[in-house]
Structure formats: C-alpha cells, structure tokens
C-alpha cells in the first residue's frame, strides 16, 4: 500500500517514564529520496485520476495514512 515508504524505529523506554510508552515510532521516506532525476516515459495515472493523487506518476505517489508519520 505504501510501497515500502514506511520506516519503524523503537525508542528507548525507561522504567521511570510517567506515561504509557510509545514502543514503535514510524516515519515516511517518500519516493523523491530515491529518484534524483525523474526518468522519461514513466507510466502515468489515468488523466482523470491524476488530480486526486496529486501527481501524474504512480512512481512518485506517496500514500499517507493518518498517524503514520509519527
């Protein structure tokens, strides 16, 4: 769904932390990190769909699920 754009890490948890600990934190690494220069002829979304995706090219699309950036 997110094509491997999600990363997880596990923060240190102290036994003295006052609040229930967050054990897994996530962040997003969007496609622009891997593509330095967009190659030509990448497949495109149907023209009707591009607006709602925010981009013309699926390779550059990053789906964001609320709560996953943190």
């Amino acid at each position, binding site marked *: 769904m997110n094509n491997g754009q999600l990363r997880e890490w596990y923060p240190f948890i102290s036994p003295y932390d006052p609040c229930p600990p967050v054990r897994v934190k996530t962040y997003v690494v969007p496609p*622009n990190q891997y593509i330095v220069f*967009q190659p030509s002829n990448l497949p495109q979304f149907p023209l009707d769909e591009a607006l709602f995706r925010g981009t013309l090219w699926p390779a550059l699309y990053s789906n*964001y699920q609320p709560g996953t950036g943190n």
Partner: protein
Amino acid sequence: MWVYEKKLQYPVKVSKCDTRMAKFLTEQYGGADGELSAALRYLNQRYTIPDRVIGLLTDIGTEEFAHLEMIATMVYKLTKDANAHQMMTAGLGAHYANHDKALYYNNAEGVPWTASYIQAKGDPLADLYEDIAAEEKARATYQWLIDMTDDVDLQDSLKFLREREIIHALRFREAVEIIKADREQKKVY
C-alpha cells in the same frame, strides 16, 4: 507578470464544521514553512538563479500561491459562519478580537509572518537546498495536519498538498543536478 484564474487548483471540500482546524491550518497560511513563505521564497530567488532554472522557480512559486488560496478556502469555509463564541471555543478568540473572521498572515500560534522565514543567498546550491528543505518541512506539516482531522474531505485536500511538496522537492533536486552539470561544462550562468 501574474494573471489570475478564477478557479482553485484542487476542489477543496470541507465536510465537518470543526472550526478548531482553522487555527491549525493557518500554520500553512502564514507560518514559517507555509505556502506564503514558499511562494515568496522561490519567486524572489529566481532573479539571481542561473537562467536554466528560472522557469522552474517561477512555476513552482506560482503554484504555491494557488496552494495558499486552497488553505485560505479551508479556513474561510470553517470560520465564515462562526459567531464570536464559536470562534472563542475554537481557540480563535484572540484572532477574532483583532480580525473578526478575516484571515491574516500568521502561524497557528498567532505569530505574524516575517521575511525572516525565507532566505536568498545568491548562491544557486544554497538557494536550492533551502528550497528542498522547505518542501520537506511543508510535507511534514501536512502530515501533522492530516493526523489532526478526521474529516475525510479535508484530508483529501491536505494529502494533495502533501504530494505536491514531494514533487516540488524532486524538481528542486533535479535543478541541483542541472546546476552541477553547468559547472562541469564551465558554462557562464
């Protein structure tokens, strides 16, 4: 020069009357990493950036004004029908006391916009790296705003804006490559 088209870039819909979101959305209106900063930053840098990259800065800068208008639309829709008490409950009491329902260029905490939010070093790489960083910061801010609302329609617009930041960052990286290539070929800017 600029010419205005009477339509939003994206059909903004707000389905939930959650006026509290208006306060937070303002972060992208008059905040440090918001759309006004982006527009003014890029449009200002383009006077001294190498010729090959002026088009990109002009076009992204112009698109940012379209995004500024989208944020204004969201805030407008969420506040236009609120009375004084509803504004206060939404955390916008201080804003209302000064501005009524008028929008204003400040961040979510009410700090007014300042040119200190933008830079123009005159060096193409410094300028472009500032632009890339700005896009990534805006992308992150949209993530937090999406997290804060359960209005699916509002989320759609915010997800659109977030994706645009990703594309812009990519274009600025490409501009860096173009600048680097110019140096190797010893062209005069």
